[in-house]
């Protein structure tokens, strides 16, 4: 197999993982092994980080009591998964790196870390769902976090219960990449 063929095979595999990922909100009761959770966080660690600042920390819990308490303050957490991984802003690192309030790069870094974890989870056969609809102050309190750490996003992680998505008779048509893409000029959907 040539180098080009090998690269294409790798790209196809990566794209299959990306494309097959769906949000999972229903999980079996099976716990998620610690080494799998560690792999997810390792994937997050390799996400792009603006200025290589690494302002974020990751908090993992598999404690059902903690997860139940977190859910009380998280309207976006529609069920209680076997594990949650939080992406936290470390304000001590942010201050050291002179991060400005409202710097969009901070949110981008949270997103890239979450996406890496979701992609890795899909490759490992796990289901995930990112959640940002929660009270940061409430969740910080029930997790016992110091004021220097702010939860920005939580990722539900578990072994997904298969969902029959064909039931969605009223689902919208899939978005085409062409409709989302401009080539060289706004409104131009094809390469010239």
């Amino acid at each position, binding site marked *: 197999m040539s180098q080009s063929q090998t690269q294409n095979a790798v790209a196809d595999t990566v794209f299959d993982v990306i494309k097959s990922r769906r949000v999972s909100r229903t999980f079996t009761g099976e716990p998620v092994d610690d080494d799998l959770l560690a792999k997810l966080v390792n994937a997050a660690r390799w996400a792009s980080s603006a200025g290589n600042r690494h302002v974020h920390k990751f908090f993992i819990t598999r404690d059902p009591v903690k997860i139940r308490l977190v859910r*009380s303050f998280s309207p*976006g957490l529609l069920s209680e998964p076997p594990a949650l991984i939080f992406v936290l802003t470390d304000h001590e690192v942010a201050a050291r790196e002179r991060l400005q309030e409202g710097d969009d790069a901070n949110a981008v870094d949270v997103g890239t870390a979450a996406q890496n974890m979701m992609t890795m989870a899909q490759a490992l056969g796990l289901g995930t769902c990112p959640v940002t609809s929660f*009270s940061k102050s*409430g969740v910080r309190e029930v997790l016992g976090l110091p004021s220097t750490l702010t939860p920005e996003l939580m990722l539900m992680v578990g072994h997904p219960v298969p969902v029959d998505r064909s039931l*969605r008779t*009223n689902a919208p048509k899939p978005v085409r990449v062409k409709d989302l893409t401009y080539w060289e000029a706004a409104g131009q959907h094809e390469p010239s």
Partner: protein
Amino acid sequence: MPPQTKDSTALAAPEEGGSCVLSEDQALRMIAFLTSAAEISIHEPTYYGTFRLVDAASRLIAFMLEHDPPRSGEFLRELKTELDTKKVWMMWDRESYFDFLRATPAVVAAEVKRQADEDRAASEVSA
């Protein structure tokens, strides 16, 4: 005395004969949910607020069902299934979701009226 429930901390309904349908812990969790929903509604799209309210109703029903409410149990089980099935339409079929929101209070009203009619009939018999 109101009837005893499985949970000794259950809140008693004030009226004679009322059922205990929420424990103190469950009430606190509802308060946590509602205050958190209020906070995130500051920055989320306005129609998300409707979803939070419907989800709160579903969570409240889940707590109530743990106490086997004698008069409303069957109705609440069906309503919860309806709420949980259709609330997620918000994410991909907003018009159908809004139609569901418009229709749901009438479903609840029918049950409230049914119980009120039962109470009236019972009071007339006892008088």
